[in-house]
């Protein structure tokens, strides 16, 4: 399509040639670890899928405790392709969290957080936390007995934090227990607060990547480094990977649509063998390791404090890893990353099979 008049109209108002030249001259490094660069692009693509499918579902979902469960059943059973969009939203979320975990760990192991990219690490880490909260808030919207019990456990766990725990629990629940108010609150988080914060952070993250450029691992020697144009080479490679990811999400959504349980009943006992979503299993399993009381203190509070300290240390790693800041190799932090990864995987698997 060639529209010279339209092109001229835009050229008179915006520096199109400058933008074209910027895209043409932007170079990205290529080396043996470049595969990890694509995880960020995949996460962005999955966020776009989540936004589109989420908007479609929100046209029909009713965020009121008496109608929420029924509205989802109607989306799945009565709407044309409703089951598919819900399944796509579910699997998109699951894969997005897997990809975000891989992205964070690859950043850690390649020390891409080192000076001057500390804010890239912080914004990415907060985005992972937000994505997990997206998962928790979206899970409750189903308003079935499993989601209800899982949210009661998760918000109850947050309540065990000293000093601020009670406030966080009451703020999340909108009262002393999980009720219809929690549902409306989680809906507001899921469709307005979290998407706004996510959009802002994704924008900041991409801007910082543009500003600093891609990080090259310390182990890649100068003579091994090459650069390729971002446009069209990297864009086409990204496109191929996005299409494969789309295929995987669509296949999972078609072959394994998520089940819907019985409508939540706040007065009924929690169903047996209740488990949270897979990304909370390592926390759930860690809590199980601790006895009820340690030296007269609440065991659960101590466990939550230790977990919070572990996550906080992980968040502040760019400041602790002083060797990387100086441009030297720091195997200690590679091992710390490996230990975190193994702990997460082992606890998740144990939680899944137990």
């Amino acid at each position: 399509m060639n529209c010279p008049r339209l092109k001229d109209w835009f050229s008179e108002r915006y520096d199109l040639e400058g933008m074209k030249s910027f895209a043409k001259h932007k170079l990205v490094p290529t080396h043996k670890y470049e595969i990890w660069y694509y995880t960020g692009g995949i996460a962005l693509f999955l966020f776009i899928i989540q936004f589109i499918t989420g908007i479609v579902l929100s046209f029909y979902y009713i965020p009121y405790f008496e109608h929420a469960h029924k509205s989802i059943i109607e989306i799945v059973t009565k709407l044309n392709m409703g089951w598919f969009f819900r399944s796509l939203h579910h699997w998109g979320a699951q894969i997005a969290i897997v990809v975000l975990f891989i992205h964070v760990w690859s950043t850690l192991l390649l020390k891409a957080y080192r000076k001057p990219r500390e804010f890239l690490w912080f914004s990415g880490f907060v985005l992972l936390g937000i994505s997990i909260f997206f998962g928790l808030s979206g899970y409750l919207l189903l308003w079935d007995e499993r989601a209800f019990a899982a949210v009661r456990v998760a918000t109850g766990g947050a309540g065990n934090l000293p000093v601020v725990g009670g406030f966080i629990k009451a703020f999340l629940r909108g009262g002393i227990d999980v009720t219809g108010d929690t549902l409306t609150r989680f809906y507001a988080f899921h469709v307005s607060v979290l998407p706004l914060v996510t959009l802002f952070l994704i924008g900041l993250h991409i801007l910082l990547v543009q500003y600093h450029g891609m990080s090259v691992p310390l182990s890649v020697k100068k003579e091994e480094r090459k650069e390729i144009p971002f446009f069209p080479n990297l864009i086409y490679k990204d496109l191929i990977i996005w299409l494969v990811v789309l295929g995987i999400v669509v296949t999972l959504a078609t072959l394994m649509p998520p089940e819907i349980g019985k409508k939540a009943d706040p007065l009924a006992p929690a169903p047996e063998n209740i488990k949270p979503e897979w990304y909370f299993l390592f926390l759930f399993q860690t809590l199980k390791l601790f006895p009820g009381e340690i030296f007269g203190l609440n065991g659960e509070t101590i466990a939550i404090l230790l977990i919070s300290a572990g996550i906080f240390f992980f968040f502040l790693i760019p400041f602790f890893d002083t060797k990387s800041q100086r441009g030297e190799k720091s195997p200690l932090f590679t091992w710390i990353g490996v230990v975190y990864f193994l702990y997460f995987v082992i606890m998740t698997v144990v939680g899944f099979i137990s």
Partner: protein
Amino acid sequence: MAFAGMFLYAVDLFAQQDKIDVFPAVPYDRFIVYQNLIIFWIGLIGLIIIIKMKLREIERTQRMGIDKEEEDIPLLD
């Protein structure tokens, strides 16, 4: 025997009422969904092959160095 069969059918019917169909239940609809999934993958693979071919061509022209415009190219006008 027939009574046992009827009983099992009734039990199965009540058991199914608890489970919500999250996928089209009619066999014909299921067939259409699976058929569409196969067509989708064929289209996707075709698209990937076209992009891959395009990328290879771009890399070839870049290796030859004919993707860059010459600065002192003589113009006819």
